Structure formats: structure tokens, C-alpha cells
């Protein structure tokens, strides 16, 4: 009996390489100021930055603090600044980074730093709550489902993908200097309901976003669109809300 033998070329076998991470540490109980620390761990090209952080925590320094939950890019816990850009650690692979250089990892910008890579998300969620991110239906509750055409559903499809990771809001130069600005994520959440044909609360949401710290603070830098791990065209959504306000048409 002949057994099928598969020749695996040696190049296909993944090799673990030493990768150095420069992490911005801050332990409020010991440190006056945040500081950088270097960690070198062996990783495969297919590993995620999150794997690296877990390895560092397990093998090198148990005090390293970061948020993580699902590890599959859907819970939105592990947003951080990797090589100067907001990314999810669980969606950033080692092979997509230039490992010949040190990889910098720091907390997202513009929210109060609590410890290492953990920030206080409360101002972010406070802005989210203000745009009334829930369906406000009109009239009596129907006995069957609320019918919506495919075209009507497509209008807000992009903004349903948000996972509230704060990558967009904390990539915004306006938000860094003005925490009162609602920020891209809250506007995306509002967009999802403003353009929903089943919803009747558009006026209330548009009124909130028409304020001084609402959509008009957006300077279209497109950092949010680049940062979104879900590929939402965030700036486009903000512009649609601006146009809805200008032309009084949803």
C-alpha cells in the first residue's frame, strides 16, 4: 500500500522570530509619569499583537495590564495604538508589521489613562448614550415584524457594524483637544438610527448633533475611517449626517 507523501517545502514551515515591543507603561501606584519598556518575545508571522501581549504578561511581566475579551475582533476591548495608529491588537498580525524595527504599543489617545494600556472609557460611552442609540418606533406596536425594503436597509448597513472599540474617536485630532466633542463613534451610532426607515427619533438625534460639539466639529481628517477595524466609512457617515442637517432631509 502506498501512502501519499506530501512534500512540505521548508519555507512554508512557520518560524518563530524574536520581535521587540516597546510598550508605554503606567502603573499609577508606582509611576509619576508613563514610561516606555522593551520586551522581546518569539512569535510566528501568523501571531497577533494580542498573542504577544499575552506572552509578555505570562512569561516576562505579570503586571502588564490591558483589556481583552473575545480575541476575535468583535468585542472591541483591545483597541490600542500600534506603531502610531489605532488598531485592535487581536486583528493586527505580526506578518503585517515591520519586525526589523521595534513595534510601539501604547494606550489610545484622548481618554484618561488608568493603567498601562487601559483607559477610562466613560466619556466615550457618555457621548454614545447622548445620541439615543436605540430604535424609537412610531405608532402602535405591529402584530408582525416592521417591514423594511432592502434599499432602506442598505442606507445604514455600514454603520450597523460598529463594535464600540473607540478606535475612531481616539484617532480624531479634534477629540484629543476637545473631550466635549461627541466623536466619530457616537455619530456613527446616531447615523445607524437616523437613516433607519423604521425609526421616528431622527429629529431628536439630529438636534443633539447640531449642537456646538456635534457634527460640525468634524474637520474631515479621515483618521477615523483609517482606524476603524470594522471598515466602516466613518467620515462618510458623518458627512451624511451633516448633509441631513443642511438640507433638512433624511
Amino acid at each position: 500500500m502506498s501512502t501519499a507523501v506530501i512534500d512540505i517545502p521548508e519555507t512554508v514551515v512557520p518560524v518563530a522570530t524574536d520581535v521587540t515591543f516597546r510598550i508605554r507603561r503606567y502603573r499609577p501606584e508606582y509611576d509619576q509619569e508613563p514610561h516606555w519598556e522593551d520586551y522581546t518575545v518569539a512569535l510566528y508571522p501568523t501571531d497577533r499583537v494580542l498573542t504577544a501581549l499575552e506572552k509578555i504578561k505570562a512569561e516576562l511581566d505579570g503586571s502588564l495590564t490591558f483589556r481583552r475579551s473575545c480575541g476575535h475582533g468583535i468585542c472591541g476591548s483591545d483597541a490600542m495604538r500600534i506603531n502610531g495608529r489605532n488598531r485592535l491588537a487581536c486583528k493586527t498580525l505580526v506578518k503585517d508589521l515591520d519586525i526589523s524595527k521595534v513595534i510601539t504599543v501604547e494606550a489610545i489617545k484622548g481618554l484618561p489613562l488608568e493603567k498601562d494600556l487601559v483607559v477610562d472609557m466613560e466619556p466615550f460611552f457618555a457621548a454614545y448614550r447622548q445620541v439615543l442609540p436605540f430604535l424609537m418606533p412610531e405608532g402602535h406596536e405591529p402584530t408582525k415584524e416592521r417591514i423594511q425594503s432592502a434599499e432602506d436597509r442598505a442606507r445604514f448597513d455600514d454603520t450597523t457594524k460598529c463594535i464600540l472599540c473607540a478606535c475612531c474617536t481616539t484617532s480624531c485630532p479634534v477629540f484629543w483637544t476637545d473631550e466635549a466633542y461627541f466623536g466619530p463613534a457616537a455619530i456613527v451610532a446616531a447615523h445607524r438610527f437616523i437613516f433607519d426607515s423604521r425609526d421616528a427619533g431622527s429629529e431628536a438625534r439630529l438636534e443633539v448633533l447640531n449642537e456646538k460639539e456635534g457634527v460640525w466639529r468634524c474637520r474631515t481628517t479621515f483618521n477615523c475611517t483609517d482606524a476603524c477595524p470594522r471598515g466602516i466609512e466613518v467620515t462618510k457617515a458623518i458627512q451624511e449626517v451633516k448633509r441631513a442637517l443642511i438640507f433638512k432631509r433624511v
Partner: protein
Amino acid sequence: MATKTPVSLTATPIGTLYRGGEGMWTWVLQRITGVSVFFFLFVHVLDTALVRVSPEAYDTVIATYKTPIVALLEVGLVGAVLYHALNGIRIILIDFWSRGPRVQKQMTWVIAAIWLVVMVPGVFFMLKHSVEALFGSTP
């Protein structure tokens, strides 16, 4: 191999510079050119108003503008105004054209190309006189 090395406290204790794309840097440039043009207009209003105070003083100030250094500043001014205007059009298109946000990167390269096409011959003609005055053999 796994190692841990503390980096000196002085090595950028603040965070790194955010690595934004075309959108962020055009916005930064729009601010810089905007403020620069504003200060030019401020000086320009002052020097023009000087003619009401004393025509002689006005002539003295205008004479200092005919130096090569001011000619270089003029090139900077034209470059700043041109960039600010072109990027302004790009921003208007992002605001009012529904396809604008999707093609903002391409529009950035288009305005950069227009800026170069206008500036290269522009700088040549603007500085021609200064170069001749400085290095020319015949007055």
C-alpha cells in the same frame, strides 16, 4: 528568547506622534497656511493703511518689499494661498459631493499635482527678476 529591558525614562516619555494619512496632514497644512495667510493680511492692511498716515513712510516700507528676501516670502505666500484654495475646494467636495469622502485620497494627489504645475513656472517668473538683480551681469 524572551527578554525585558527598561528603556530610559527620557526616551519620549510622551506618546508617539499619531500616524495619520493624507487627510490628517492636509488638515494640518490647511491650518498652517490659513494662519500664515491671516498674518500676511494683517500686515498688508497695516502697510496699506500707512499711506493715510504719511505717503513718505508708505514709500519707505514698500521699498523694503523690493528686496530678494521679500521676493522669497512672496513665493511662500503664493504657495500658501494656492494650497489653501485648492484644499478648500477638496474639502467642499468632501462636504457636498456624495462620492467625495471615498475619493479624498485621489483628490489630495490631484491638488498636489495642480499645485506643482502652477508653482514651478510661477516660481520661475517670480524669482527671475531677483536672480537677475543679484547675479546678472547687466543692470
